[in-house]
């Protein structure tokens, strides 16, 4: 019999990963927004994500709501610890979220909402990266509450992970645009994607090298058997994916760079999971400790097992409906 709390840790991890790769590419489109040459390119970029962005962002609500439901202690410790990055991320998401509709409703203020779309996307991505870095570094708690200071989240390492996420999302965004467009915009993004991939790989390498030194547990896990096997396997998998990415880009493939970039994110996510396990909040709050009582886990699980596959099905359908290249002259605005 499986522990329910571990099943739930898996589900939450799945929700967070889904959020990262889905909202990752649409935040990335926002990050690349200033690189559009004219109104036509801007409209194409925005229309490529307009029908799907709020579905993507719903996974973030599920991550927050799910954590509250099944790991209330983790939620109660992490939120105050990451107070400022979370609030800034939320405010940034407000700016970029409303820009989708607002920019079409005004002429004079259009540049304002374009900046809001770009700035909101960058800040949201950066804050998510900072939150990740702060989490990897570890969050202190005592008596079921956060016990650290107000600026603990800010460090060289968390700034590094923040930048890494901004660049990584931009990579996802550029490959999404490659997938969804053709002509000049696509060629331009192919050019960006190459350098963004190089930078992303650089950040992955740097963060991977620094992570084991954030906590002795990580060091021990990655440099002793059986973990050290993974220390060989994971970088190899990253290299294979990188090869798939660059060869796809070179061969002018539409979809291959996008999916290779997604796999890169999945690999990083698995790497983080290996570092964290069996903690949900490093360095000491375990999955089991943080879990809600059995009756809560079970009640929520019943619905999740039924509803998540349905959600995945109709989300996939929505993507299918809006498949293919974006027609710059289409859109509802």
């Amino acid at each position: 019999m499986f522990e329910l709390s571990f099943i739930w840790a898996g589900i939450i991890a799945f929700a967070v990963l889904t959020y990262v790769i889905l909202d990752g590419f649409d935040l990335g489109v926002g990050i690349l927004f200033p690189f559009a040459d004219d109104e036509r390119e801007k409209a194409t970029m925005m229309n490529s994500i307009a029908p799907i962005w709020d579905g993507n962002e719903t996974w973030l609500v599920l991550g927050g709501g799910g954590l509250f439901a099944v790991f209330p202690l983790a939620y109660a410790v992490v939120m105050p610890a990451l107070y400022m990055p979370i609030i800034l991320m939320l405010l940034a998401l407000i700016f970029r979220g409303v820009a989708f509709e607002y920019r079409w409703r005004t002429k004079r203020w259009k540049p304002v909402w374009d900046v809001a779309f770009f700035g909101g996307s960058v800040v949201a991505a950066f804050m998510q990266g900072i939150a990740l870095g702060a989490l990897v570094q570890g969050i202190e708690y005592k008596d079921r509450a956060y016990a650290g200071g107000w600026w603990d989240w800010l460090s060289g390492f968390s700034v590094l992970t923040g930048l890494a996420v901004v660049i990584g999302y931009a990579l996802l965004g550029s490959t999404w645009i490659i997938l969804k467009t053709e002509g000049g915009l696509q060629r331009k993004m192919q050019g960006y994607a190459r350098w963004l991939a190089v930078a992303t790989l650089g950040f992955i390498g740097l963060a991977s090298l620094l992570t084991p030194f954030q906590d002795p547990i990580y060091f021990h896990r990655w440099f002793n058997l059986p973990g050290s096997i993974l220390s060989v396997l994971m970088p190899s998998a990253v290299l294979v994916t990188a090869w798939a990415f660059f060869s796809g880009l070179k061969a002018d493939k539409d979809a291959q760079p996008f999916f290779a970039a997604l796999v890169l994110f999945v690999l990083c996510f698995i790497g983080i999971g290996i570092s964290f396990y069996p903690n949900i909040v490093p360095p000491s709050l375990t999955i089991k400790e943080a879990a809600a009582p059995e009756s809560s886990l079970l009640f929520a699980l019943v619905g999740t097992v039924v509803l998540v596959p349905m959600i995945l099905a109709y989300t996939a359908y929505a993507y299918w409906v809006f498949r293919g290249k974006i027609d710059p002259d289409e859109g509802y605005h």
Partner: protein
Amino acid sequence: MFDSLNAETLARMQFAFTVSFHIIFPAFSIGLASYLAVLNALWLRTRDATYLTLFTYWKKIFAVAFGMGVVSGIVMSYQFGTNWSVFSDKTGPVLGPLMAYEVLSAFFLEAGFLGIMLFGRERVGDKLHMFATAMVAFGTLMSATWILSVNSWMQTPTGYSINALGQFVPEDWWAIVFNPSFPYRLVHMVLAAYLTTALVVGGVGGLHLLRNRTDAPARRMFSMAMWMLIIVAPLQILAGDFHGLNTLEHQPAKVMAMEGHYDSHPHGAPLILFGIPNPTEKRIDYAIEIPQLSSLILKHKWGAPLNGLDTIPDADEPPVAIVFWSFRVMVGLGMAMLGFGVWAAWRRYRGRLYDTPMLHRAAIVMGPMGFVAVLAGWVTTEVGRQPFTVYGVLRTSDSLAPVAAPAVAASLLAFIVVYFFVFGAGTFYLLRMMNKPAATPHLGLKDGPIRTAGSTQITQKHPDAHPSE
């Protein structure tokens, strides 16, 4: 005065501010989503182009309002943790799963089908598009159901025990979800959302009738809104009465504050119409009262005794003045809605619905009143729950995160600035869209290559869509 601005007060202000801004959008989009589903169904059934014109018109307004609801809602799902982490740790096992169900059964549904509803008619065809529109409407109602269950449980908690860690542990999910005040609160809120939307649609219809009383879409929407109003307003007053009786049973102190009953009335309580609550002297100054009427309303019996706040320990009393006033605002507006609905029904009966400019002006004045009433109602029920977060069990002061006042103050300030800026702009755009007649082909701007192609996409493919053009 400023001594009282401690972290708890600031955190409460922040929650009140963000949730008040947030509720405005769902209150509108719950009603509007249903209205859109009805409009689309009527268009498909009758092929009367006026319905399609109205659908297209309100769809764009819906998109803006819904976007604002989404982003202000994401804030809510994290605010429990940032400012109220102790509350989250303790109530998470009970409330968390309900919120997870809201996300899974409502938010995804809305978000998943919204894109198809807004952009997809040409791609999926009429039938699937209708299905998507219905799913969005269904999603908004599901969302209301779950979140009102959560709120109601905080008002009337049942079905739990408390473990050694001080957490609420679910014992009986049925009792938790269907807690005693939930059915009343759900009905009251959904009706409020429908009323709010009817008033907005009526106000927009009235505005355009004043300008041109032959405007076909304006006539249609005004008529539909007035039908909705005359049906829903009386139902809402009835539902409110039942809700009040339920509150009297489970949260008597809240009703005492609503009624302004500082003192007990063993021989029947008067209904205080107006007066100035005086919290220091614990009485209502300059009260205008109707003898016995409060007993008659609340107990349905002449001379029935009613307890007052003198029976409640001071530490457990809600702030009387706020609850007293907000309740009167809500009820007063409810009565005004009913009166307005009756007036409109009478003008319709006389065949003058579209030819009574006074009525159309009144519709504009009443347009935003649903929002005011919704906010006043929520203030009544939420402030009336104080000083508890989980009524009678968990105090607000014991729910707070270990946050420092400056951090909460800074984030509160940021929320206030950003919300007024962002949602102020959004409201301006909404009003500007509503200011244009429904048959306007380009609701946002007049020109621009993308817009010209995009905004009239549907109308181009259905050339009969805008007969008035």
